[in-house]
């Protein structure tokens, strides 16, 4: 066996250029992979830019030529005309309420889904959110009208059980209440999903430590679990608010025309009134609100929890 010992006498080393590891792609192949998606995204952004362009054009009823020049009157109108301010206010109000209730109903559900030791319970709860996720929204909203409608389940039950007489109606559709319930119904699966993901990452030994120090379950929840799950709660709340605020089908079907959230107003302006610039301005406002909410969420999460 030849044994080579490191030789103190230096031999002239073979110098080669610094080579990348064999098999690693060049940056150009990365860009090639990304290209088709990038194309689509560019298309999308172009559409958004064009939307913005529309929103600052003067309004011209069909047939008339569009005047040259840009204007901000549509934005002014959206933010000052009481009709549209009302629409914005309704949007915010209902989204807020729906978010609160979705969190209240969804948190215990998500908690049990993640923490239960029984496979049966967990499967049941998973099915409870999987089914709505996979079912068509229109179908789900229709189903909800069967429950809330004037001749629906709740009304029929109230009459049958004697809480109401035959001629009375409990109005749960065509009003803010109905849309509010509908929005909660719409966002609840998303909220449970988001909370479940966040709760799963929670370290249960922290709760055990609290209990070993004398805190009962409720105290442990409020002092340990809830604060630690706050980023998840904020994420779920943001998602819920954004989904509610931009909801179209839900107010359409449960409001039956008498509740106009911002998405419905946009639709009306563009496809019925045909005031395209105004509709575009409203859409841009909706987009800006969404971006602000996302920014707020990022700031809140990072500042509090150093995420």
């Amino acid at each position: 066996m030849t044994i080579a010992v490191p030789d103190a006498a230096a031999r002239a080393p073979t110098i080669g250029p610094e080579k990348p590891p064999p098999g690693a792609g060049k940056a150009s192949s990365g860009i090639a992979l990304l290209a088709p998606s990038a194309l689509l995204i560019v298309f999308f952004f172009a559409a958004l830019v064009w939307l913005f362009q529309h929103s600052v054009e003067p309004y011209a009823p069909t047939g008339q030529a569009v005047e040259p020049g840009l204007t901000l009157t549509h934005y002014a109108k959206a933010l000052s005309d009481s009709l549209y301010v009302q629409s914005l206010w309704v949007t915010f109000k209902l989204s807020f309420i729906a978010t609160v209730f979705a969190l209240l109903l969804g948190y215990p559900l998500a908690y049990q889904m993640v923490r239960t030791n029984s496979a049966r319970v967990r499967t049941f709860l998973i099915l409870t959110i999987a089914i709505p996720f996979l079912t068509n929204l229109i179908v789900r909203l229709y189903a909800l009208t069967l429950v809330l409608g004037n001749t629906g389940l709740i009304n029929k039950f109230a009459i049958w059980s004697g809480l109401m007489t035959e001629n009375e109606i409990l109005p749960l559709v065509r009003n803010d209440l109905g849309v509010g319930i509908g929005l909660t119904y719409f966002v609840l699966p998303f909220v449970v999903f988001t909370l479940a993901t966040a709760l799963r990452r929670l370290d249960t030994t922290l709760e055990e430590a609290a209990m070993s120090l004398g805190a009962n379950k409720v105290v442990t929840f409020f002092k340990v679990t809830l604060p630690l799950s706050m980023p998840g709660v904020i994420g779920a709340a943001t998602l819920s608010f954004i989904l509610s605020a931009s909801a179209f089908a839900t107010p359409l079907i449960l409001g039956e025309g008498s509740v106009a959230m911002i998405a419905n107003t946009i639709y009306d302006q563009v496809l019925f009134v045909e005031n395209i610039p105004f509709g575009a301005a409203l859409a841009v406002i909706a987009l800006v609100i969404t971006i602000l909410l996302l920014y707020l969420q990022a700031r809140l999460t990072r500042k509090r929890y150093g995420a």
Partner: protein
Amino acid sequence: MLRTQSYAQRLLAIAGGSAATLFRWGGILLLIGPIFLVIWLSFGGDEYTSVPPTSYALRWYENIFAQPEFVPAFWISLKIAAICTPTSLVLGTLAAFAMHKFPVLGGPALQAVFYSPIMVPLVVTGIALLFFFNLVGFTANFWNVTVGHIIITFPYVIRTVSVALARYDPALDEAATSLGARPWQVFTRITLPVIRPGLFAGALFAFTMSFDDFTVTIFLIGTDTHTLPVAIYQYMEWNVDSTVAAVSALLVAMSVVLMLVIERVIGLDRFIGVRG
């Protein structure tokens, strides 16, 4: 020495537990109650949908096929979803790989750009695309809707595939390489099969979001391209019989089949993110 709880503490514990249970059951009821109701009512035989039904029949199921709008709408929705799903899958997977292998492309700014269709409200996307298609002269409604669906679904594919790639053990690629596999073989024989759950979840998102979409679609359709959700809505507006209930029941059945498929391929609990 046992540290027993005070009376107030115990009361608080019971109240808290009861409230949680109440809310939880409220949530469960809200989530699935209406769906069970609609299935029940789909078998009602009355002229107008009534709660509860006074008779039972299958007439509304038959009516689905008798009416002119539902079956064609179903096929259109299916066709659009069938084109949208593989396209989104390929685009999203390529993008996810690009971001994974070249971290410079996966930075937060570029990520935000590629995920932006998810962030933008659907109604905004809908009308923006409507105007832009007008501008560039695309008038084929079927393709407009399809492109719209691809735009709103492929970011979800990027996300699910990225998650799968993040968990991928790079040593697997090296092991295959050390055994003689060339890069293309590593990709097809090792990488793709191992990230299959991510691919499957992405394809599923793409399919359901395309098939079920209402908001973006309604801005982009013409009179000849009604998708199923649109057809259901329009029928709902003008009729009070239980045909919609029957269609709904069928769609729920489709969802159940989909769920069984998910359970088989990757497991429902993994899909929902409860485990693993």
